[in-house]
C-alpha cells in the first residue's frame, strides 16, 4: 500500500467583523432554529451572551443560555436540552465549554450510554446535531479537533468537529500573557511539524496559513502589556483582533491535529512532563511543543527534504527565495529560536528557550532524540 494522503475538516471557519451576524442564517441552513447556548462564567460576566443576543436581533432566534459552573451540570443540561426541544448547540467559550457541548451532543444523538461505552474507532459514524463554536480565548486546538473527553474516556471522530467556528474580535476576553504564549506556541509547533514533515499537501495548506497567523501576532501580543486584561472582561481594543487571529491559528491547528494525530511535538509533551525533575514546574504544553519542535527540526534535517520550505511561512517570499536551498533548514530553525528568545524577553520571570533550560539533563535530552527525530520522512508521492 503506497502513501495515501487524506484530509477531512468538517468545520467551516468564519472570521472577522460582524461574524456573529451571519449565525442565524447559517443555523437556518443547517435546519437549526432553536440553539442551546453553553457558556462559562467569564464570558457571562463580560456580557458576551448579550453580544451574541444582539447579533440575533430581528431574526426570530430565541436562545437558551446555560452557564457552566461545575461538572455535575451535565445531566441538568442534558434534560434541559431534551425537554425544551432545542435543536443545535452554540458553545460560547473555550476548554470545558466546548468539550461539554461535544459530549452532550454525543449523548443526545447516540444515547447517554454512549458516554459510558469504551471509545473506539468507527463508534461515532454519523453526523451529530449542529454545533457552532465561538472561542473567547486562543486555545491549543483541542476545541476544534474531532475529539472530546468525558469521565476519563477519550472519544475521537470527525463528527465531533464543530460545524462552524465563528472567530471574531467581538468575543475575545482578556487573556493573560502565559495563555497567549501557550496557545501561540502550540499552534506554531503543530503547524510547523505538519508543514515540514507530513508530506500531506492539504495539511500543509492549512498549516501554512496557521504559521503565518502566529508569526504575525504572537510576538506583538506578547510584547503588549496585558495588565489591563482581566479574564472576565473583553480584551483591550488593541488586543481583540490579534487575539482573534491567534484563536484562528489555534482552530487551524485543531483541524490538523484531527488528521495527523501522531505529531511528535504533541507526544513530546507527556514525555517531557514525565521526565521533568519537577513535573509541577514543567513548562506549559505549548512551550514543550515548541522546544520539541526545534529538536525535531535539527535532528531531521538530513532526512527531510521539505524542511527548508518551512522558511516560507515563517518569514516571507522574499526572505525565503533569498536563502539558498541547502541553507534553508538552518535558517528556519534560526527563525524559531529567534522567536523563542524574543518571547522570553517579554516574560518577567524568563522562559526556557531550550530543553536544557527547561530542566532536562543532556542524558534525558539524548533519550528523547528517538522521539524527536523523523527518520523516515513522509515524502509526497510525486
Amino acid at each position, binding site marked *: 500500500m503506497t502513501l495515501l494522503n487524506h484530509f477531512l475538516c468538517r468545520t467551516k471557519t468564519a472570521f472577522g467583523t460582524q461574524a456573529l451576524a451571519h449565525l442565524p442564517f447559517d443555523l437556518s441552513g443547517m435546519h437549526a432554529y432553536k440553539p442551546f447556548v453553553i457558556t462559562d462564567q467569564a464570558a457571562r460576566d463580560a456580557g458576551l451572551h448579550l453580544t451574541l443576543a*444582539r447579533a440575533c*436581533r430581528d431574526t426570530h432566534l*430565541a436562545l437558551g*443560555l446555560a452557564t457552566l459552573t461545575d461538572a455535575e451540570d451535565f445531566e*441538568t443540561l442534558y434534560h*434541559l436540552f431534551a425537554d425544551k426541544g432545542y435543536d443545535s448547540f452554540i458553545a460560547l467559550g473555550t476548554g470545558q465549554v466546548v468539550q461539554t457541548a461535544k459530549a452532550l451532543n454525543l449523548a443526545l444523538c447516540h444515547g447517554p450510554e454512549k458516554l459510558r461505552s469504551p471509545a473506539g474507532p468507527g463508534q461515532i459514524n454519523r453526523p451529530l446535531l449542529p454545533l457552532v463554536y465561538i472561542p473567547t480565548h486562543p486555545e491549543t486546538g483541542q476545541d476544534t479537533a474531532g475529539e472530546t473527553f468525558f469521565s476519563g474516556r477519550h472519544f475521537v471522530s470527525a463528527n465531533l468537529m464543530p460545524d462552524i467556528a465563528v472567530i471574531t474580535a467581538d468575543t475575545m476576553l482578556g487573556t493573560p500573557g502565559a495563555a497567549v504564549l501557550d496557545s501561540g506556541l502550540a499552534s506554531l509547533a503543530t503547524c510547523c511539524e505538519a508543514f515540514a514533515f507530513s508530506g500531506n499537501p492539504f495539511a500543509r495548506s492549512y498549516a501554512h496559513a496557521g504559521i503565518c497567523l502566529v508569526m504575525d501576532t504572537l510576538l506583538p501580543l506578547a510584547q503588549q502589556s496585558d495588565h489591563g486584561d482581566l479574564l472576565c472582561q473583553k480584551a483591550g481594543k488593541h488586543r481583540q483582533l490579534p487575539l482573534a487571529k491567534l484563536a484562528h491559528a489555534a482552530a487551524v491547528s485543531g483541524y490538523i491535529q484531527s488528521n495527523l494525530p501522531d505529531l511528535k511535538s504533541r507526544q513530546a509533551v507527556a514525555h517531557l512532563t514525565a521526565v521533568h525533575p519537577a513535573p509541577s514546574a514543567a513548562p506549559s504544553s505549548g512551550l514543550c511543543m515548541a522546544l520539541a519542535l526545534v529538536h525535531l527540526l535539527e535532528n531531521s534535517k538530513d532526512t527531510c527534504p521539505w524542511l527548508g520550505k518551512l522558511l516560507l511561512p515563517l518569514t516571507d517570499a522574499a526572505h525565503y527565495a533569498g536563502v539558498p536551498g541547502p541553507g534553508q533548514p538552518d535558517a528556519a530553525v534560526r527563525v524559531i529560536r529567534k522567536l523563542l528568545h524574543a518571547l522570553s524577553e517579554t516574560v518577567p520571570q524568563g522562559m526556557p528557550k531550550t530543553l536544557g533550560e527547561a530542566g532536562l539533563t543532556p542524558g534525558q535530552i539524548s533519550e528523547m532524540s528517538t522521539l524527536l527525530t523523523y527518520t523516515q520522512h513522509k515524502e509526497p508521492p510525486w
Partner: protein
Amino acid sequence: MTDFMEIPPGRHRWKKLYLRCMLWFFGRAVQAAARVDDGVKSEFAAMPDNFTFCLGAFPSGPYMVVGKDAHGRVRHLGASLADRPIHLHLMFKSPALLFRVFAFQESTPVANARNRLYVHGEVPQACAVVRIMDVIQVFLLPKFLAKRAVKRCPAWPLKRRTLVRARVYVRAFGGW
C-alpha cells in the same frame, strides 16, 4: 448548579427604521431613474414584463420591492413581499449586514465578496439589478461616498451627472 435563562429575540428599532427609510427612498430612486436615465432604462428593457425583484434582509426584512408591470413600466412596489411573485431576491443574511451597506461601512461588491448576501433567482438578472443599484448609488451619493459604495465610479458626461441626477432626485422625492 447550572444557571439557565432564555433570551428572547430582540429588535433593533432604530436600525430597522433607518433601513426602512433608506430602502423606501432607494426604491423610489430606482423608479425615477428607470424613467429618466438611458442606462437604467436599457437594463430594465432586457427584463421580461412583470419582472419583480426585492432587496432586503433575512429572515423577515425590511424589504424594497421593485417591479415592471405588464406595460413595461417600472414601479417601486413598497416594502411587502405578500401577494406578488418575486422573481429575484437579493437578500442580506441579517438586517445588521444590510445596515453595513446602507450606512456606507461596506460597499456592495465587498459585501458580496464577504458572503454577506445571497441571491435567489436568475444570475443574469441579478447582475443587471446590481448594475442598476450601482447607478442609483452614484446618482444619489456625493462622489466621496459613491467611490466607497461602488467598485469604479463611472466617468459620466456632464448632462448625466447634473441634469439627469437632478431629475432622479426630484422624482424620487415626488414619487412619479
